[in-house]
């Protein structure tokens, strides 16, 4: 083994350890925050009952963003293979109907460009990887939903998903269930939470424990609890944000 091969490993280990210590130092703060959130959320929901239920068409029309648009994100990947979720953060760039960029900046750099039916992933220090979107139906469904929402196109959303909207403008939730039976086996539901014209959470819920939950926009200012759970994130999605 040469030192050349060891180096990147140490760096990676260091980043991971840093993250862990950082995370543990805020556990106390978060624990209090969680308690507060658990108590406060239902209280608040009771205190200000929904003025009027949202209408799907109006809501989705309001979500339209003309390309190009960028938004910060934190993504947590839950999998049955993992004892703790994987966290990455960066920016999403929306360049058009079938053009999406995903730039990871933390804890490492990685760029994904989705153009048409093809996905290209470039991670620092590694050769580029690419695959056809068709081979990853989960990803494809996510992309469909995402770009249809960014286009404010309810009809496009409805074509692929059975759509239900709940909540009020202050805290709404869109739930998408794939119409394609094959896809439905792998993706049970896509859930988007938001407030006014801002989507805040984008969750792809797979079978069992697997899920990808993405917090969008201001959420990057959150401190995350350790261990991070899907439940915490889900609560975060529906709770009022600053």
């Amino acid at each position, binding site marked *: 083994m040469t030192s050349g091969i*060891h180096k990147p*490993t140490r760096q990676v280990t260091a980043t991971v350890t840093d993250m862990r210590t950082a995370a543990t130092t805020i556990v106390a703060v978060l624990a209090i925050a969680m308690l507060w959130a658990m108590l406060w959320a239902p209280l608040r929901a009771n205190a200000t009952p929904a003025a009027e239920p949202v209408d799907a068409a109006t809501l989705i029309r309001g979500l339209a963003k003309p390309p190009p648009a960028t938004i910060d994100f934190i993504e947590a990947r839950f999998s049955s*293979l*993992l*004892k*703790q979720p*994987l966290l990455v953060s960066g920016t999403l760039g929306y360049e058009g109907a079938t053009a999406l960029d995903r730039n990871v900046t933390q804890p490492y750099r*990685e760029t994904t460009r989705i153009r048409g*039916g093809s996905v290209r992933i470039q991670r620092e220090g590694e050769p580029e990887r690419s695959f*056809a979107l068709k081979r990853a139906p989960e990803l494809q469904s996510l992309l469909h939903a995402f770009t249809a929402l960014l286009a404010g196109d309810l009809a496009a959303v409805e074509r692929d998903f059975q759509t239900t909207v709940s909540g009020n403008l202050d805290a709404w939730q869109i739930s998408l269930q794939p119409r394609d039976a094959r896809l439905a086996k792998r993706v049970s539901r896509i859930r988007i939470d938001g407030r006014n014209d801002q989507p805040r959470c984008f969750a792809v819920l797979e079978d069992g424990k697997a899920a990808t939950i993405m917090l969008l926009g201001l959420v990057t200012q959150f401190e995350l609890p350790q261990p991070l759970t899907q439940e915490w994130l889900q609560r975060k999605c529906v709770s009022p944000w600053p």
Partner: protein
Amino acid sequence: MALKRTRTALLLLAGWVAVLASFSWYLQKDLVVGTDLRLFLPNPTTAEQRLLLDEIGEGPASRMLVLSLEGADAATLADTSRALAGALAGNPLFRLVTNGEISLDAVPDELLVYRYLLSPTLDHDSFDAAYLHRQLLARARDLSSPAGVILEPLLPSDPTLELLKVLQAWQPLQEPNRLYDVWFDTAGKRALLIAETVAPAFDPDRQRAALEALQQAFHTLDSSGRLRLTISGPGSFSVLMEQRTRAQAQTLGTAATLGMLVLMLVAYRTLGSIILSSLPLASAGLAGLLAVSLLFDAVHGITLAFGFTLIGVAQDYPLHLLSHHRPGQSPLQAVRQLWPTLMTGVASTCIAYATFLFSGVTGLAQLACFTVASLAAAGLTTRFLLPRLISDGGRDFGDSEFLGKLWQRIATLPRPRWAGPALVVVCLAVIVLAPGPMWENDLSNLTPVPRDLLMRDQEVRTQLGTPDLRYLLVVKAPDDETALARLQQLDPRLQELTGSGAITGYNHAARYLPTRDRQTARQQKLPDPATLRNALAQALVDTPFRADVFDPFLRDVERARHLAPLSLDTLRKSPLGAGVDMLLTRHGQEVTALVTLTGVDNVAALHQLADQATPKAVLLDLKAASESLVAEQRTRLLWSLSIAAVLLIGVITLALRRRQRVLRVLSPMALTTLILVAVLHGAGIPMTLFHLIALILAAGLGLDYALFFEHAADDPHDQRRTLHAVLVCAISTLMVFALLALSSLPVLRAIGVTVTLGVISNFVLALLLTRDTP
């Protein structure tokens, strides 16, 4: 001239027709028509030539069809490309249809377990805690990337992604442009696919079936009809050319038949003469086919085409009888008078053709067999059967005033003694002095495929980075293992050449299948279960992965430790083995491994590499090999021709006995051959096999004309009859071959032009040279 209406004559006619019918029924049933072009090439003498012939017939390049889809946006084309490849997967007509997409599902389960023996990872790394740790961290990143959804199901059994490494190593080194993960041209306008047929290129029937399957699959996919599919490659060309040749031959054949009917009616004025003159020709064709089918396994398509061209001479035999027959003399008497001349013609032509039997080229031997049997049958039926069907009486062409005047005028034409030698000198001067090559050596110039089709094919192949069609490295070995070992040895040097730009890529069997030794070496580096479990446990400590998810990995490594190395035969049976199958072939006791090259830029470097390999590899230059083969074929043909000429002179001398007569008969044909060669060369047309065949036919015709003119006695009536016969013969032949000369196909045109000129020259010279000046 009409048909005889007696009982015996009608019985004979019925019997003859019945025999012909039963022959054709038998042939219809049993005749196998071959299309392997190699039959018309000489037996290979060098290793290069042998390989060339293998390549032409069975080689990967000859089976490769290049498909391009256009007419829509790239995304639609990519979808269609994927659907087309999917629709044709498993079709028994194709070994492989690919658009370049790597799919994890493509690997059959039985090969999956071999990934640790096939992947190069263990050559430079080992499955210790440090390596596994690095890999697991990388997998964690993969998992949170968009590729995660695809990789996740793989990870428990393959955390180091060996399967992907194997699939990547199997990809071509020079990658074509990709859009949406399938091959495209650089402009992104055409989606490209490669289809490898099971049938070799020179099997038009099975190639046609394959092309139809392709088209059908495409039309099912493209219901809108907006897209366009272009298929090119040797197979599609051979189908196209077969169709075109067949279509043209049919049109020209129909035109020639109609022309013949009109000519016969004008010349003999009875319908019976048409039937009578066609019977010997039909007997000739059937006898020829029968002889070839009895002596050879299959009749080559080219033998048939050339054979039916050459027996055009046989058409003349009954015409002579019909022209010489007159009232007051029974047909049998007429034929007896003609027979010495006719027999000399038939015998000398047959003996000349017989030399081809020993040319060492199977196709030419078939041709000889066909022609000798045909001409003999035509001669014999004209002598023994035909006269018994002709009624006595009818017209005497000897009474024709017009022919009489014509003969007089010809007889009084000036025949300056210096003209002959002068003509010879001029012809020789043209042959020696005219620039340009005498012979066509380049096989690719012989192809009847239109140039623009070839150019388009070449352009798409360059885009796809398909192997160079000219250069190949060849490694011989006594068995598969040694062959793989030698390829493995060559590999680093090939990588150097790729790095230095001498070539842009290469491919060989060892890229897919390492030697047993290398597989065993990798296998021995696989840790035992306890060691691996410990290493994995250490590696897992600070990763986000749960400890127990990699049990399938432990199980698979343990299985791989006890596998017998993957053999070529096992790989061949899998759908992934198609590529290997063509790169490594077994011929009896010897294994031939090919290294295909892409983008060859520095041939000298390749020569050097081949020479420095131990044992030496061969850099095969297919162009050079094909040229030497064509040259060799020609040498043999020319030798056969020289011997034929000597034999011909012998036979004629024996028959005519007097030197003066022999000279008169042979000089028109010799002069004509000289003139034809001079004209072709002077016009800048390099001669091919087809020209030579045409020259032989022209010589045969010339011999017959001269023999009959020379035979015509001093009796003016007999002279007129001879003139009538030879005129009808010459005009009919001229008509058929002038039609061929109009063809757009180089082969047909070469034969047509040469024979047309030959007939004219032979006819004129025979008239001038066989008679004394008055």
